Every structure is written in structure tokens, then in C-alpha cells.
């Protein structure tokens, strides 16, 4: 057996050196102290408030019995550029550490350079699967600081678009989750259904994805003619197709064996880890911001909050599937009860004049110009406002210094916080369960790394 050449070894070392992240990575067992291992319990999260069973810590395990494997950042489980370092004992995962930052875009820094009107274009690309909800979150924060009221029609349009977005996000989740488990037909079905919703988005806002639609003051444009028929087609089609997914997945024995009882989490652990969204609801805690701290007009529509029991993967799957059905209910109610009126606030501080007047009146032209070059000024203050995104509580902490650009815009991404639950969920599972678990936590790396 010939020795590998020196050049090959050098090249390997160079490759490793280029992409290694030093202290951010999972350290070998010999470099980790016993107390660390005890606190880790298979996690990068160190639980101080849990009662750890001393018998479950394998401090006796020798270093050459386990293997540290790197998954990602470019890997087929299509959840984006998440790098997971796993310590494996054969097929079983002992410790796990997610290394993130591979999609860090400096959006919070860019937001300080953009005016408040342009801010929506930036924020919308954080959680790229639910752009309308990102924009809604940001617009609600800005409107709180401004102290303006949004007309009723705008509120209901925003609610309807948010729910359509929630449906499309959960459909992408079902598609990618199905594919991670091996069902490529689920991928095709989920994305096919989503095309209906995206076609409606394109008709309304002009873009399929990252639509810059919800802005401070209202929405960018009114709903197109014939929207009620479009929405009715979307709701009816997707409603009956969810029953097809039940046939394909929910009752299927292989799917159930892979998902039921895998990666459970208790309510106490979830609350301690600040996990929100379907992961928290799967443990039995009925916390949904749309119901408990309602915003927009959610207290005027009827919908159920879906809650799981065991906190395992199957519960999270069932919650998301049923949330699609609940969103369909909400969209139907919005379509029935959509009020007339303005689609954005008529406050001249925030809204440009109608385009037709620009050709006639000098004041209108100047007003338009000032609004789009300099932007409107927001009074000094700070606010934290949160909405319920398909992944959990997305919050916006906005500090204004009185100028036309935000002083500090911090978005609390739910996936960033939910990722901390992944090592705890993975402990003791096999590698194939690891993939499923990451999938059901549904991280979107855009809002993790911002």
C-alpha cells in the first residue's frame, strides 16, 4: 500500500484549513472537560436547570470509539447552509453542534442605510419562505413608533396575504420534509400546490417571492379584479389535496415508524430554550400569538390553534398539516368579510400622493420626491413587536433616533432560537433520524443568519 504523496497531504490540510471555523466547531471528546460533557448531554445547549441523570453521561467512552462527522454546509437536505457537526457512535448521535453563519448577510447593518420605505425590501429576504410575514412584522413595528392607524381594508388584506403565505410556507415544508424522508412525490405535490398561491402573489404584488407588498402605512397595491375567484380556487384545491397528503403520508406505516416517538421534547425544555411555534405547540403548550396576543384582525376570525401531545416529529408534522387547513379557513373568512376602503393610510406623512396628481400639482411632485428620496421621519423611541410566523415568534426590535433611517433594527428570528433545540432532540437518535429532526424543526437559514 503506497504512501499518499506529500502534495496530496498538503492539499488536504489546506482544504481543511480554508474551511475550518476553529472554536465554533465541535471539539473532540479529549478536549472537552467532564463537566462540559455532563452539562452538554448531547447538546451544544447546556442545560443548567435540568436534572441530569448521572448514569446517562458516557464520560467513560474513549475518544477513538466515536467519530466526529461534518454535515454540510452544502448538503442535500434542502434546509439551506446549515453545518451540523455530529459526534457519532456507530449510527447513533451523541453530541451535535450546529455551526451557522454561512448565510450571514449583514441585513441589520444594511437596514441602517436604507430608509423606512426601503426597509421592507431588506427585511423580506430574511425568512425567504414567508416574506409577507417578515414585512408585516417590520411594518407593525414602524407603525407603532409612528403612531398611525392603518385602514381596515389594509388590515384584512394583510391578514389574508399572511395566511396565504403561511400556507405556502407549510407546503414547502411538507414538500422538503417528504423528500427528506424519501418521498419525492410529496416534493412535487407540495411545490405544485404552492404554484397556485405564487401565481396569486404575482398577480397582486408583481413578484412570486420576496414580494415587497406590506409596507408601513398599509399595502403597496390593492387586490386585483377577480381576486375572490382566485382565492376560492386556491382554497378549494388545496383543501382537498391535504386529504391526499393524508393518504400518502399520515397513515402510512413507514412514515409513522420514522416519525412517531422520534425526537421528543418536553414543554419545560422547550420553554427554557425559548422555542416557539409548532415546536412549542407540539409539546402541548397552546401558545400562538394570533390567539393569545392578537394583532391585525385575528380576534375577529375563527380558527383553531393546533396543539400536539408528545412533542415528537409526528406531532410537528400533524400540526403543520392542520395549520394549512386552519389557514384555509381564515382565508375564506377574509374573502367573505373583506371591507371596502383604502388599501393604505391616507396620512400624507407616510403615503405618497396618487400618481395621477403628480403631473398636475407641484406640491404633489415635491411630496412624492421627498418621500422616496429622503423618506419619512419616525419619532424617537424604541419598540419591540412580534407576530406569529410559520416557524414561531418573529419579533422586531426597532430603535429610532428621529431620522429617516432606522438606528437599530434587530429581528428576532424564530429559527435562530429553535436551532438550539436541535442538539437536544438529536441525542440518542440515529443519523437518519437526525435528518428528519432537522427537517421538522424547519429552520430557514435566511433568518437564522440574517
Amino acid at each position, binding site marked *: 500500500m503506497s504512501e499518499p504523496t506529500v502534495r496530496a497531504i498538503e492539499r488536504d490540510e489546506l482544504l481543511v484549513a*480554508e474551511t475550518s471555523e476553529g472554536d465554533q466547531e465541535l471539539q473532540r471528546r479529549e478536549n472537552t472537560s467532564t463537566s462540559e460533557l455532563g452539562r452538554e448531554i448531547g447538546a451544544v445547549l447546556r442545560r443548567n436547570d435540568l436534572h441530569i441523570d448521572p448514569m446517562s453521561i458516557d464520560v467513560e467512552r474513549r475518544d477513538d470509539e466515536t467519530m466526529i462527522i461534518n454535515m454540510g*454546509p*452544502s448538503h442535500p437536505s*434542502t434546509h439551506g447552509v446549515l453545518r451540523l457537526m455530529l459526534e457519532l457512535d456507530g449510527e447513533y448521535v451523541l453530541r451535535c453542534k450546529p455551526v451557522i*453563519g*454561512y448565510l450571514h448577510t449583514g441585513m441589520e447593518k*444594511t437596514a441602517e442605510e436604507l430608509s423606512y420605505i426601503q426597509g421592507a425590501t431588506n427585511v423580506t429576504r430574511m425568512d425567504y419562505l414567508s416574506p409577507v410575514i417578515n414585512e408585516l412584522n417590520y411594518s407593525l413595528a414602524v407603525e407603532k413608533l409612528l403612531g398611525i392607524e392603518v385602514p381596515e381594508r389594509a388590515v384584512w388584506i394583510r391578514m389574508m396575504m399572511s395566511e396565504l403565505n403561511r400556507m405556502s410556507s407549510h407546503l414547502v415544508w411538507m414538500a422538503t420534509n417528504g423528500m427528506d424522508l424519501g418521498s419525492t412525490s410529496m416534493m412535487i405535490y407540495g*411545490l405544485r400546490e404552492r404554484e397556485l398561491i405564487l401565481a396569486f402573489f404575482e398577480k397582486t404584488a408583481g413578484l412570486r417571492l420576496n414580494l415587497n407588498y406590506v409596507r408601513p402605512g398599509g399595502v403597496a397595491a390593492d387586490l386585483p379584479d377577480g381576486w375572490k375567484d382566485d382565492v376560492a380556487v386556491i382554497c378549494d384545491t388545496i383543501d382537498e389535496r391535504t386529504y391526499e397528503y393524508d393518504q400518502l403520508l399520515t397513515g402510512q406505516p413507514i412514515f409513522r415508524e420514522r416519525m412517531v416517538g422520534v425526537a421528543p421534547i418536553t414543554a419545560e425544555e422547550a420553554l427554557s430554550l425559548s422555542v416557539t411555534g409548532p415546536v412549542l405547540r407540539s409539546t402541548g403548550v397552546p401558545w400562538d400569538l394570533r390567539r393569545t396576543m392578537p394583532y391585525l384582525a385575528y380576534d375577529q376570525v375563527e380558527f383553531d390553534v393546533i396543539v400536539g401531545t408528545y412533542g415528537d416529529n409526528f406531532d410537528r408534522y400533524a400540526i403543520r398539516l392542520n395549520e394549512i387547513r386552519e389557514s384555509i379557513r381564515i382565508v375564506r373568512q377574509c374573502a367573505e368579510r373583506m371591507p371596502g376602503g383604502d388599501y393604505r393610510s391616507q396620512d400624507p406623512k407616510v403615503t405618497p400622493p396618487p400618481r395621477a396628481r403628480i403631473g398636475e400639482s407641484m406640491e404633489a411632485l415635491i411630496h412624492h420626491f421627498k418621500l422616496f428620496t429622503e423618506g419619512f421621519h419616525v419619532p424617537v423611541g424604541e419598540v419591540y413587536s412580534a407576530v406569529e410566523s410559520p416557524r414561531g415568534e418573529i419579533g422586531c426590535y426597532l430603535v429610532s433616533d428621529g431620522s429617516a433611517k432606522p438606528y437599530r433594527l434587530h429581528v428576532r428570528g424564530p429559527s435562530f432560537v429553535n436551532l438550539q433545540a436541535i442538539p437536544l432532540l438529536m441525542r440518542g437518535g440515529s443519523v437518519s433520524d437526525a435528518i428528519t429532526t432537522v427537517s421538522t424543526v424547519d429552520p430557514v437559514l435566511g433568518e437564522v443568519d440574517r
Partner: protein
Amino acid sequence: MGLEDLQHNFLTGQLEDLVRWARRASVWPASFGLACCAIEMMAAGAADFDLARYGMEVFRNSPRQADLMIVAGRVSQKMAPVLRQVYDQMMEPKWVISMGVCASTGGLFNNYAIVQGVDQIVPVDVYAPGCPPSPETLMHAILTLHEQIRTGEIMQRRSEGRPTHVEDAQNLWTPEVPVAVRVGTPK
């Protein structure tokens, strides 16, 4: 019993044409979806905008088996060495489509964290603009790439002849047909 009797059983053509046809009819993409553009890439591979009609629906997970790297999404500073590693692991012949404005030029994010254009790291064949480009734009980019393959060199290694940055316009290889092709027109 001469060659005339065999006339229906043989096809003749240039070797180069056959090689070019084989290369462009089954370009297998490596999955390198990073951000929002990756979702549109998945949508292009799915039902409504099927990529399978070009033989491209198999997104190979191992770069050793892939021909085409579609860089879909914004490339951050931390991701750049990984991108180069994956590109180096691909076997010749290989092509790169830079999908979206963030991959082409840095897009909306002109700041410390994003590489301003993936052509600073890997040589790019086709740029597809859009934020995100709709699947139709991506398919146009793929067909442009097919035209480039159909009219290009087969024996020369791409990475040796082509500079990464277009410094000198004279040395640039240009295809015989204009780059804006009409979709579906055979020559």
C-alpha cells in the same frame, strides 16, 4: 453487398457534434442552493416548470457526479471557501450559472458580509438576473448555456483558457450565435 446496402443502419456525423450533444442533453446540476433563489431553483425542478425535459432533474448531491453548479443565492464571506472547494471537486467539463443578482454582483447587499459577485471566486458562464429570477428566467439561462455548449470547444479546458475576471475583451471567447437565443429553435 457494398456500403449502399448498409445506408439505413448508420448515422454519420462529426465527433464534436456528438460529444456536444451528449454534454448538453444531460447536464446534471450540483445542488448548491443557498437562499431564496434556491427555492425558485426547486420550483424550476418541480411540476410546473419541469427541468426533467432537459435531462436535468437529478440534482446530484456529490459534486464529483455533477456537471453544473448553479450558485443560487447570496454567498457570504464564510461560505466562499466552501464554494471554491465544491467547485474544485467537480470534474471537467463543468459549468457555472450564477443565479440571481446576489450571486452575480452582490445584489441588494453591498456590505461587509457578502461577496460582491461569485465570479470573484469561480469562473461563471451564464448570469441569470432577478431577485429571485423566476423559473422561466432560470430556464432561459440554462438554454443559453446549452447554446454555449453546442457551439463551444470540446478539447480545451475551460479553466485554463478563460480568465476569472474579464480584464481584456480581446481574449474573450464568444459563441457563434448571439447569446439571447430563441427558446426551442433548432439549428
